[in-house]
């Protein structure tokens, strides 16, 4: 599993370094001193809710905006105010921005023609690019004659045909329906592996970011909060926001009541809960416990007298899991239990015990 997510080192993908960029639009700070390094050939996602500054960061890397402070290097070269047409990046725009007055062929050929390549080579490479995105035979079509998914592929081909060391993607799948989106996710991942291009992918969809990326950067309110592989971000979120934004999370605010070798004991109202100790916790400090729904076990109260007591408020069946909503001491806990034929289910209104392995719960600094 770990091997699958390791980026394959390839010569073509360029390294991108972002050093302390800040961007203001009037009184609004869109990006605040964000720094990160994207390795050559990596699939890197910038993830966050809308307005978090991820698109602005991408546009600064592409040269469409200029940072007020800080700088961007691509392949070790400081970009400064280098315009987009002189950067070794290509962009797939959110609204695709296909040229409506051109055919599919002319759209894809645009970048090559700007490089004044001979016609024969333009034809060959456009053909290859359309094959790559599995759109052969549609070169003569007008853009308006294509479906959304096909337009998506043309936009991708138009960028990839230039063989950019860095491809920037600004929520390119957001206009597609779910099924097509999942299919295009797989295809983007395949393309990225085959080409070895550095992909910088902006999305607000955490599922998309987790599924596709080698590493993810989580942003909110113009700040970059955490950068790491998807599993690390899921397992060890460093802030309350990251914990709540990535995957589902039960967040329990409380005070540190006891410190043990590997666990920290937290008092939250009348409840006492345990989580994995990280080392920085101090007695009496305020923090938040994050427990994923699938880590919580639910049983009859008799079997676990020491566990939290709660009542099933709601139950939802969704195929391979059953989701419960529990009321525990004025708190709501979301629980996901894997479902197989014969799994006995709790009923709404049942009194139950809820518990988890403290090593499966993580603490983040309180806010």
């Amino acid at each position: 599993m770990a091997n699958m997510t390791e980026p394959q080192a390839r010569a073509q993908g360029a390294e991108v370094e972002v050093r302390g960029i800040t961007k203001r639009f009037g009184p609004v700070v869109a990006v605040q001193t964000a720094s990160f390094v994207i390795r050559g050939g990596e699939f890197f996602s910038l993830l966050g809710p809308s307005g978090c500054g991820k698109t602005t960061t991408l546009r600064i890397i592409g040269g469409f905006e200029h940072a007020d402070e800080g700088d961007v290097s691509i392949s070790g070269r400081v970009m400064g105010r280098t315009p987009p047409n002189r950067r070794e990046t290509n962009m797939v725009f959110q609204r695709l921005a296909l040229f409506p007055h051109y055919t599919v062929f002319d759209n894809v050929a645009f970048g090559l023609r700007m490089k004044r390549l001979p016609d024969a080579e333009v034809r060959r490479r456009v053909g290859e690019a359309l094959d790559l995105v599995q759109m052969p035979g549609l070169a003569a079509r007008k853009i308006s004659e294509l479906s959304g998914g096909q337009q998506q592929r043309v936009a991708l081909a138009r960028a990839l045909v230039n063989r950019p060391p860095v491809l920037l993607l600004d929520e390119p799948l957001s206009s597609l329906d779910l099924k097509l989106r999942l299919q295009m996710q797989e295809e983007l991942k395949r393309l990225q592996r085959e080409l070895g291009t550095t992909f910088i992918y902006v999305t607000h969809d955490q599922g998309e970011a987790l599924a596709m990326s080698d590493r993810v950067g989580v942003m909110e309110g113009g700040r970059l909060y955490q950068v790491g592989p998807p599993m690390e971000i899921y397992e060890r979120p460093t802030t309350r926001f990251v914990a709540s934004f990535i995957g589902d999370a039960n967040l329990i605010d409380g005070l540190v009541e006891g410190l043990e070798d590997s666990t920290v004991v937290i008092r939250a109202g009348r409840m006492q809960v345990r989580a994995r100790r990280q080392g920085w916790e101090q007695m009496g400090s305020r923090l938040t416990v994050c427990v994923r729904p699938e880590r919580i076990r639910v049983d009859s109260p008799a079997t676990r007298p020491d566990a939290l007591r709660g009542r099933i408020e709601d139950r939802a069946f969704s195929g391979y899991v059953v989701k419960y909503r529990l009321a525990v001491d004025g708190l709501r806990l979301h629980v996901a239990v894997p479902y197989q034929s014969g799994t006995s289910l709790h009923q709404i209104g049942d009194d139950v015990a809820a518990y988890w392995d403290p090593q499966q719960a993580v603490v983040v600094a309180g806010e």
Partner: protein
Amino acid sequence: MKITRAAVLALLAPAMALMIILYVIPLGLYFINSFRLFKDGRIIPIWTLQTYADYFTDPFSYKIIWESVRLSLIVTALALLIGYPVAYALHTRVRSAGARAVLALLLFSPLLVSVVVRTYGWFILLASQGLVNSTLRAAGLITEPLSLLFNSRGVVISLTHILLPFAIFPIYSVLGRLDLSLKEAAQDLGAGWWDTFQRITLPLTMPGVVAGTLICFTLALSAFVTPRLLGGGRVQVLPLMVYNNTVEINWPTGAVSGLTLLLLSMAAVWALNALLRKLPSV
């Protein structure tokens, strides 16, 4: 809410009535004269095609038609050549909505002045001792004054000036609808300013250019006061001919001239609309 056919007709009726009473009927009555004959200073009430035959066999008619079309084409071309950069600058360089509104008002302000007043203003500017000539002479660019009055130059200058807003605004409004990311995409794919303009912006704003052409050309073709005053009788165009024929009670020839003018305008509208339909929409 569903609007019934009767309601639609009721809503249209006042406008339709006005159009029919004030436009279609007088025009029809006037054009009936084209089938009469003008002889010995009076209109003979017979049905004949003689006036048409005379008009379209007279080389003078073609001279007038050509002069009208030529002037209108020059004025239209100049208005577009000057108007496009203005629209482009207004769109790309002026950021604040307030500044845009002020500039738009300034551009339209010539239209708020009576055409007669404006034309006499041009007299002052274009005369041999006028501001234009004296400035050029002071700058050492000319020794003899340019003759800008009572010929087609003055008419072209004045008409271009007044038709400029009609070229600027259709282009400006199409520029406003242009998806900015198209320009960014072109830039991203390696296009500099010129390639982006010539391959993306200009082709996609052609609907605005065509609409501007349509308005400028038809207005220039039917212009009357400017050619009459600034042309000083030496610029002979169709509307002047219609006027002259009519005051000379030669209504049959006036009607044929008028129909020719109408057909030229309609041909331009038809041709440009056909072109517009072929252009990609933004």
